[in-house]
């Protein structure tokens, strides 16, 4: 893949009228946005307004919010998810950096074996061994703990290989200069490598943050205490408030649950794209 961000365009291709493209893009963007816009509308309505298919904002936004945020303590679930996503993202980034450093700047026996050991995990998604992992982690006595949510996801082959590839493409002079200064590997990492790798770090961080924030299956199994649950699973309890199917609060909660990953994604979108270009380059 070329290291061009999608914003960078090439001449010559685009000829002819432009308004059909504006029309097509606006239509497509609207269709894609429809489920969310519709949810935003429902989030402001109470059940009678929903059943009368009112197309203007309703009157129940405040009460829906109270039902979600206060009555069902969605704030607590949000905080749990923030912590989990932060720990996993930070931990995975650090461990991947260390692994990349070891792979690229050290010679050691059996390196190919270690590499293979990590490579093989690419074909081992957690989901196919989720029952054994559930039994094992329960056996550790980690049910309903943050450790159970974070520890299994701290390392990944993707991250280690991403940094290995990135470091391998950097000029060797960096290391030589650093060695002449007598810097230790950790100093080399923090003073030299990290400052020039922010794009790759940001790309990995966005992917990991969004991935962790959106995790559903593992928390739904290992966390049974509602007070310690993460938002994606907590949504399920909101289908029923005070004994009836309530649509408004559920839609509001779904929107609230999507705000943090959306912000992270939008803020780091540029870096994410250029980082991806580097990561994909072979």
């Amino acid at each position, binding site marked *: 893949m070329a290291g061009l961000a999608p914003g960078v365009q090439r001449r010559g291709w685009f000829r002819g009228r432009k308004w059909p493209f504006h029309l097509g893009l606006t239509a497509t*963007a609207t269709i894609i946005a429809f*489920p969310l816009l519709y949810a935003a509308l429902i989030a402001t309505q109470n059940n009678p307004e929903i059943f009368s298919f009112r197309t203007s904002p309703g009157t129940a936004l405040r009460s829906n919010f109270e039902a979600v945020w206060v009555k069902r303590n969605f704030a607590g679930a949000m905080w749990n998810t923030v912590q989990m996503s932060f720990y996993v993202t930070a931990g995975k980034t650090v461990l991947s950096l260390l692994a990349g450093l*070891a792979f690229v700047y050290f010679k050691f026996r059996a390196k190919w074996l270690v*590499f293979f050991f*990590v490579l093989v995990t690419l074909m*081992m998604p957690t989901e196919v061994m*989720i029952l054994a992992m559930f039994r*094992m982690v329960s056996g550790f006595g980690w049910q309903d703990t943050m450790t159970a949510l974070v520890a299994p996801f701290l390392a990944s082959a993707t991250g280690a290989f991403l940094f290995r590839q990135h470091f391998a493409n950097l000029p060797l002079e960096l290391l030589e200069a650093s060695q002449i200064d007598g810097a230790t590997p950790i100093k080399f990492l923090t003073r030299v490598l990290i400052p020039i790798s922010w794009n790759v770090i940001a790309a990995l961080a966005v992917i990991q943050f969004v991935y962790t924030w959106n995790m*559903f299956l593992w928390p739904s199994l290992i966390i049974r205490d509602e007070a310690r649950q993460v938002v994606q699973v907590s949504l399920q309890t909101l289908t029923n408030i005070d004994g009836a199917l309530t649509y408004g609060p559920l839609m509001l909660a779904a929107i609230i*649950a999507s705000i943090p990953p959306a912000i992270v994604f939008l803020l780091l979108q540029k870096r994410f794209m250029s980082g991806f270009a580097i990561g994909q380059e072979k």
Partner: protein
Amino acid sequence: MLIIGLVAAAILGPFYTWRNTDNPSASRFGIASAVAVAGAAVTPIAMGQCGFAAESTGVDHLFAYGLMAAGALLGLVALQALFDRADGKKRDTVAMTGEIRTGGYRMGWWVPWLLLSPTLIILLVFLYRPAVETFTLSTQLTRLGAPRSVDVCFSNFTEVLIDDPFKLVAYPLLAIAAIYGARFWVKRAAPGSLSRRGADLAAVGAMLSVFVALYAVFSPGGGGQVAYRPVYVNTVIISIGIVALGMVGGLAVAYLAFREIRGGTIYRTLLIWPYAISPAVAGVLFFMIFDPTAGVFTHVMDTWFGIDVPNYREHAVLAQGAIILASAWKILGYNILFYLAGLQTVPIDQIEAAVIDGASAWQRFTKIVLPALSPITFFLLVTNLTYAFFEVYATIDFMTKGAPAGKTSVAIYEIIRVGVNNGDLGRGAAQSVLLFIAVIGVTLWQFRTSGSRVSYGGA
């Protein structure tokens, strides 16, 4: 019966090495023979030869021999890698894992190990150990939370398959034969000829025959067997639906959006944001849209078109369609993102030449743009497939919970239903192993293809 397998391994081991090694020698054949026997003996010893026990059936024997063959083959492949290293021959994997630069720190041997140790420990404890335990569990009858378990040999596997050992071997072999036959035909036929077109069609047909063979191999239920065939069918329909809709849609939107146009960055952001939405939230949003009483879809169909849409949760096709639509919508942003990047690598000079030659827009697209995008398409195929296998769980859990009558219960959903909700860990683990094999198959196919065929254009 065990002896037959071991003798076969002792004879066929050297044969494998003879075919693959550059430097055949008596000692190498001896080692290969020993390794093959040892590899073949691993599973019978670990499982107490249960596949050959007095009460075992023909299908059990098949499994026992199959595992012996797999063990022997694994040992031989590893041995071959060692021989190649000794010969100084760099195979793909060795070239990939080898040194990527000459410089480096000269410090104590323990320093790189120290840097790698957190990663290796996490992978060992939370991936390798559960992987091994999944295989162990799959041969047991274990209840969730119960301390005791009973070894049941292969019965967790044999009960999801048809119980005719002959068909069990014949169907997959037929599919494999079809693939090799078609490949042979493709090789022989001259490019561009009519025969070549027939061969290409045959190759596609051979690929499809794998799906048919698997369909025939899984048990439809009845006679004490578990009906796994419906789960297989659901998984195939829903996965293919998500991948096809998500990728075709993604490419179409990206092709519309990648051109230089005022406000292009804003458009692109407005197209890819569903990447950040979770599968669970996608399920919630489409749960609302398709809700039979309050949803806009039913309402509009009724009031505008006078169509009385049945409750999608009670209608198999609608339920599967709703799951596919919700999941494809969520993955669309990801596909657009990658296709936008991929479209930057399309060779512009070829496009311009094609315009001058009077090629139509459709011809330009199929003859130049699509081939140039093939690496991205292939990459997305694998990631989308992974998504459709696993992440779809949350969407299904919110929208249909497997209803109606299990018609939206895909493999991962069934694993949780059997293993956690029914507390039947052994059966759930056996189904996990099936899914595991599918994932390994897809990944190996990816490694092989990306190693040989896919070329990264540009850059």
